Every structure is written in C-alpha cells, then in structure tokens.
C-alpha cells in the first residue's frame, strides 16, 4: 500500500531527473558523471568501511593529554606515563588507554588556522574556512554519506551523537539528504521513532497520505513532492527496520554498558559501536567541556577520567568483535590549547596540537610529528586541516581530489588542493 510512491531512495535516474528539473541542483550537479569512474577507483582502495570520530568539543589541551612536556613544569602539572609501546609516553590521566597504545598513532603536528570555536568547528568538520567563497560546506560525515553510503540502507549513513547541534555538522550544499541523524541522548536513541498508534493504523494513515500525495504531485508537478516523499520514506523505513534496534542500548549486557562508563559520552561510544556494527558509515560522538579558560587542571582531570574509560573500552570492544581493522577511530577537537597557563586556564590554540588515529588499518604504536620543547610550534611533520581531511577521505575510500560544481557554479575539490594524506599512518 505504501510501496510505490514512497520509494525508499532516490535512484540515480531519479536524481538525474530531479537535477534536470532544477531541484537538487545544489546537491547533484556535476557530480554524477565523475562519480562513476574515479569514485569506484578510490572505493576499491578503502582501508576502512566506517569512521567514528570522538569529538572533544571546546579544544583539548595537547600538553595534558598526548603531547607531554615533562621538562617544562610551566606546561602542566600532570606527569607522563609509559604505555605498552616502548618509548611512547602519554598523560597519567589516561592510564587505561596507555594499555591500548599499540592500536593508536598520535599525530603531534596538527597545525591549523582557526582559533575561535565556531570558525574552528566549521574548519575541522568541513575542511574549509567558514564563509570562504560564500558557501556552506558539507561536513565530513555528509561527505561520507554522499560518497560511500550503501544504497537502500535503512538507517542514515551519518549519525551525530551530541547534545550540541552545530551547523558545522550539516550537509551544506550537498543538500538535506546528507544531513546527520542527530541523537541528543544515547539513552533515548532516536526520538519519535515509535508511532503513537498500532502498526495497522500506521499503514492505514500512510495509505491516506499516499492518496493525498498523488493528487498534489499530479497537479503541481514540483520536486518538493519527491523530496518530501524521499524523507518520509526514509523516516518510515527507519520506523520499520529491525536494524533500528541498534539505537536501543538496553539490548546490551549490563556489564558492557558499565564498561563503557555511565556518562553520556560513554554510552554514546557504545551506541557508535552498535551503529557501525549494523552498517552505519560515519558516527560522531561528542564530549564537551574542554574550553578550559578557567581551572584547567580540575576540568581536564575529570574529562580525561570519562574519556579514558570510554575510549579504551571502545577500542578493545571493536577489536574483540573484529571491527577495529575496518573502523577508523579518530580522537580530535577543533584545536588544542595554549601550552602555557594564563592564571589557572589555557586559551585556544590552533598552531600546534594533537589528534589520535586508531583502527581502520592505521599502524598503531607510533607517533607522527613533533612539537618544540614547549609544545608551542610544530618542529617536525606539520599536518594541515586539508592534509587531515585527505587522510580521512583516503582511508574511507573517498576520492578527495574529485571536483564538483558548487551552487555558485564554480568547481570545488572535495578537499582543498594542498591536502595530501599522512601516509606514515599506514607505513
């Protein structure tokens, strides 16, 4: 009854037809012919099938976490500890994670250009600078949704688990089809997923809706009808699919849930694992509160406690389930923090900071790049935002060089041209 006009996705032919009608011009023009050849080639080189980003909102201090400066007491009060990989030290605030070092590659030479939260979030989620060229850029998750989602998959390919919905998460000019499915509270899962009425009643209602849709679409012939139909069909698909139980954390053993930690972030990590397991391509899990302008030490200690337990459990759980090799996990913020203190706090710092890459074929147990002795500048192997994005794209089998026409008609590469992947990660 609700099958025909509520087709579950835009087929490529539909997409072309809609483009011809001027509808999804912003999302599809110029893409399709290129997609076939060059995308297929990139896809065949994919190292990972999915990506989980652990987003430290506010900007975590590198000199309290993964880039310790024990020789300079003014860089922080916390001590480095050894890890299971000889020669690599991290913060004493991450003792559990020290046991997983063999799976992790620390990139200590992140060097970016935005020092303000909003602009930096756009920069580190999209690879471009906010407002550059008057465009709204797609986030990495939307790019993944556009490039590597499985046709007909009943769950959106990009899920953001975060209590903050920032526009930097968005699909930009790729259009609403690639917007993230936001989950504000992992304990609640997807809101409004369950109908307020019985399944046969839902069928009856959708049948009535279908009748109304046919009339309107016939008379007005606008792409809006297809867009509405597509979104509703995907929503209904999500209501109906067995796979949506991935959102239900109560199906996990109590022991597993406890191992991830009872924080929103910990339960978000568990949800991310369940989603990746079920076939979702890109999940971001947010841990906020890193904007430690005041009382840095107390805040960082508390946050690292949460982080250490949840991230460690996530990595070991993925490994036990045989998912670590096919899942790229990234720890990052929008920037780092000043290595020196101002009163008891640290300010924003984009010039030198750290990210951590795990799984997805990454060669763990290594450190790439180096900051100077005070952690203020990158002394060796700087990694730009563009290089970071090229790396993520390449790992996921997404052609980062492909150019597409933007709404303004200008061709734009998926990742800024200067970006080259950090190949040492896979050496």
């Amino acid at each position, binding site marked *: 009854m609700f099958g025909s006009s509520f087709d579950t996705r835009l087929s490529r032919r539909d997409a072309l037809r809609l483009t011809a009608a001027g509808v999804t011009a912003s999302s599809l023009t110029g893409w399709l012919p290129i997609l076939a050849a060059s995308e297929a080639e990139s896809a065949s080189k994919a190292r990972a099938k999915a990506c989980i980003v652990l987003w430290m909102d506010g900007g975590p201090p590198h000199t309290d976490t993964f880039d310790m400066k024990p020789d300079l007491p003014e860089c922080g009060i916390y001590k480095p500890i050894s890890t299971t990989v000889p020669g690599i030290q991290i913060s004493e605030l991450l003792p559990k994670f020290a046991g997983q070092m063999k799976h992790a590659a620390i990139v200590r030479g992140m060097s970016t250009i935005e020092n*303000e939260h909003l602009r930096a979030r756009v920069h580190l989620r999209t690879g471009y600078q906010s407002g550059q060229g008057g465009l709204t850029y797609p986030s990495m998750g939307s790019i993944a949704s556009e490039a590597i989602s499985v046709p007909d998959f009943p769950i959106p390919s990009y899920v953001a688990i975060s209590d903050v919905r920032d526009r930097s998460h968005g699909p930009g000019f790729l*259009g609403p089809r690639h917007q993230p499915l936001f989950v504000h509270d992992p304990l609640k899962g*997807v809101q409004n997923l369950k109908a307020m009425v019985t399944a046969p009643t839902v069928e009856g209602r959708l049948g009535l809706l279908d009748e109304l849709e046919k009339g309107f679409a016939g008379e007005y012939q606008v792409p809006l009808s297809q867009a509405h139909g597509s979104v509703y069909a995907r929503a209904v698909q999500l209501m109906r699919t067995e796979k949506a139980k991935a959102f239900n954390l109560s199906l996990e053993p109590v022991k597993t849930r406890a191992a991830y930690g009872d924080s929103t972030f910990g339960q978000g990590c568990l949800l991310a694992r369940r989603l990746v397991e079920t076939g979702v391509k890109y999940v971001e899990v947010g841990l906020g509160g890193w904007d430690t302008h005041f009382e840095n030490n107390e805040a960082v200690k508390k946050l690292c406690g949460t982080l250490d337990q949840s991230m460690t459990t996530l990595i070991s759980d993925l490994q036990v389930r045989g998912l670590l090799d096919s899942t790229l996990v990234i720890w990052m913020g929008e920037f780092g923090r000043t290595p020196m203190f101002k009163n008891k706090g640290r300010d924003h710092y984009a010039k030198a900071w750290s990210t951590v890459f795990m799984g997805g074929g990454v060669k763990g147990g290594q450190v790439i790049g180096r900051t100077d002795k005070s952690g203020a500048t990158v002394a060796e192997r700087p990694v730009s935002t563009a290089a970071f994005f090229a790396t993520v794209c390449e790992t996921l089998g997404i052609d980062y060089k492909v150019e597409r026409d933007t709404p303004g008609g200008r061709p734009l590469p998926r990742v800024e041209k200067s970006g080259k992947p950090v190949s040492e990660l896979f050496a």
Partner: protein
Amino acid sequence: MRRISRSGLSSLFVAFAALSPIVSAAEPSPDTATIARLIDEAIQKRLDSEKVSASPSASDAEFLRRVYLDVAGVIPSADRVAAFLDSKESNKRNELIEALLASPEYARRMTDIWKALLIPNTAASARQKHEPMVQWLEASFTANKRLDILAREVLSANGLQDENGAVTFFITHETVDEITDRVARVFLGVQIQCAQCHKHPFGDWTQAEYWGMAAFFTKVKSVYVKTGDTQRYGAKEDATSKSKPLLMLPASVKATTPTFLRGDRPKVSADGPNLPVLADWITSPKNPYFARAAVNRVWHQLFGRALVSPVDDMTEANEASHPELLAALAREFSASGFDLKQLIRGICHSKAYQRTSKPGGSNAADKTLLSHMAVKVMTPFQLNDSLEAVFALAINEKTPPPTAVTRKTKAGERGRFATFFMGEDDPDPTEFQAGIPQALYLMNSGHHYAIARAANETVSRKKTPEKVVETMFLATLTRPPTDKESTTMLTHIAKATDKRAAYHDILWALVNSTEFLSNH
C-alpha cells in the same frame, strides 16, 4: 471570536475583524495600481518575447492560502476559508490583502524574516538575548516604519539592549568581518566576503573596498551596566575609550580608513562616530544598492525566487530576470518613502502574484519568467503557526483563555520548534529542508494528542462525516476535498470500527502531506 458562523459576507468581515481591528476596504490606490501595472507589463513583455504562456489566475482558495502565508505567515482557519470562498464580493481579494497587512500577524511575519537577516545563527549569538530585537522589530513593522529609518536605527544603534533593542544587532556579532558581510548582504544585496582575502572572482570588489567598509565598525565598544543583581548589556560607538572593541578583527585584517563600497572616502573624524556616516550613505535615495536590495528581498519573500538570484548576490555579472522592472520598482519604493507595506500591497495586487502555481501549456519548465507562481515550502515559523491554527480546531468554550504564562510557554515552544526545523541560513524558499528527525516529529510526536483533540472537537461540532472531512480539509489545505478525496476519506471512516480514530487518521494524513507544508 473563536466560533464564526458560516453565513456569507457578514462572516467574512467578522473573520477579518478577528484578524485585525482595522479594515480599510477600498479600490487600489493609484500608487498600488502603478506598481501592479509595472510588474504585469514587464512580465508580459518577457513572456511574449520568449513565447511562453502564462498560467491562469489562481483560484480563490489558492490565493487565500498564499496571501495568508506570505503576508501573515499562517494559514487561515476553516471558518475564514469558508467565508472567503462563499463571498461573492468582487473586491474581496483586495480587502483581504488590506486586512492582512493591518494584522498583528503581518508584523510577526516580517519580524521573523528580519530577525533571521539581522541576527546571526551562531552559538555566540545564541548566548545573547534576542527578545529585545524581536520586540523592537515588531514595533517597527507594526508602525510600518520606513525601511531607510529602520536600517539607519540598526546601523547606528547605541545604548543598552533593554532601552534600544536594535543594539542587539551589534552584540550578537563577534567579528568585524562577520558584520561587514551581513551589512553588505542585507542592506546592499551584495556579497563582498570573497574580497576579504583576494579580489572578488565575479563581483569586482577589491580587497581595499572590503576593508574600507569593515573599517566603519572598529569603534563599536560594549556597554555593561550592573545594578544589584541585574546585568545589562549594550553597545556604543566610542573612539575615545581605550576599552577593547566589541567586534574582533580577524588576523587577516588590512587596516585602512573607512571607505564606501566603490571608493568614496567620507569625512569622519578620528574621535567621532563612523556608523551614522555609513548609515547616511546606505539609506540615501541616491545609494545605488539599498532600494534594489530591498525590492529584491521582498520579491524573494513573495515569489519564492528573487529577481536577482541568489537574493543577496546582486553583482553586475548576475543579471536580473527583469532588469527594467527591478529598476522601476526600486524607483517606486524609494519615491514611496521606502514604504514596505506599499511595495507588498502593490505586488500582491499584480496579476503575476495572483497566478496559479499549477503549470499549464508550455510553461512547466519555466522558473524565471513568472508564467506561474512558484510552490514555496513553509518556513519553520509558518509551519509552527499553521499547525497551531489547525490544532485550534480543538478550542471550545471550556478552553481556558491564554494567560501571560501560557503565552510565554507558547513563545518558547515556537522558538524551539523553529530551531529544530531550521535548515541552512537563508534557504531557497522552494526547497524542502526537513530531514528524518523532523519527519518523525511530524508523524509521531506529542502532536498526536493535539490532532486527536482537534479531530474530536470537529466531530462533535459538525453533523455529518462529510462536513467533518470538509472542515478538516479547509483547516489544513485551505480548500474543500475533491470528490475522489472525499470518497477515500469517507470510505476510511465507513470501514473503521473505531470511528473517532478514523478521523484522527485523516487529520494526521492532512498535516503530514506535502500540500500542507507548501505555499502554492
């Protein structure tokens, strides 16, 4: 005023009176007729030369829904629809336009639009109070303040937020480049942000012009007053104070003296204010951008596509679909004393605005010649207010009247709903922005109860299933059902064992339909 009996013309006036205390029904004034004539002549000329036929005039139902949504931001109630469709009054469309322009809903709709234009949608902005700006805008649009005066009051706003809501404009921006871009886009209709880093690729703005405009904003300082526990914020231009500027300068700044776009350098004293000088230039009748930008913006609001599109990218390389019309309307707008209501009134009177949005003849592919009206998607505010209008079917004599507390709760819910449904900034009005969470919300949220109450009350008031179904269609789609739809719905009721639930199903389907979400 909740229940209006349906008895032809008298109830039409009652219905209008419910919307507005002022009903001035008259033939179009000469100026209105001039604007409408300019529009129709220019559009017909292009249609003729391109050999594209125009669609016929919209039905009363289409027109009613459209002008309600465009001018008042909400769909009409079932009673108002019935009264309008029944009326045989020849001047009823013009009377409706007047009633809507005089309604408080007009000021609310314009406030929704202009608040989104003037206040950035950023986390930094969200930390500030927006309500003073909302109140200031509502008062301005209620008084039909001249647009040049409104712009001037925003651009040179000084003082504390709770004394002058317009300063909210400054304190919700963070950086000089952010505010420069916004002023250029909103008041001049041009995008100059590319020129921040290099010469603009399409427009021919230079970096020097960009930073010349940005330099006007460097003397704005924040104002902070603490009295007891009350903290008050504001902004003030003050070149002499040593305090840090309110708007941060980006690292890429190229320091220069204040210079108007296109190079004229005004006299501003080092210790005097800059912004009144900028405001004078922007709002001068001689300014080549201001009136054009405003006309293009209003056209975008009413037709779903601006004469120059994108609406805020009016470069020389980006030609208008009807250049002479844009120039003529800008002249009229300027001559009218930048009277927004008069411009909207004139457009609403035109044949072009009153055409059906159904394609006909050879015009289905036409998007720019205005052969037929575009189908717009309800904005988040229009959707919220229209759902509220449907849910108001449930209101009866037992419903407690709104109090200050319930009004405040409603306003909060309205804001949260709009935030949840908001797509990108300044979206294409014809593009569907909602995603899966929004569709799930419309299908499965607590709306369920509001729908049930509205359906139950309708059933208890109307005598027959036919009448109930008709009322539900009027209240949601602003038209009666077609015979086929009527049959479908009545069959659904006949087959149902739980009749009440069957009515819930029908109202649910109506508010989830594309047609409900659209302004056609």
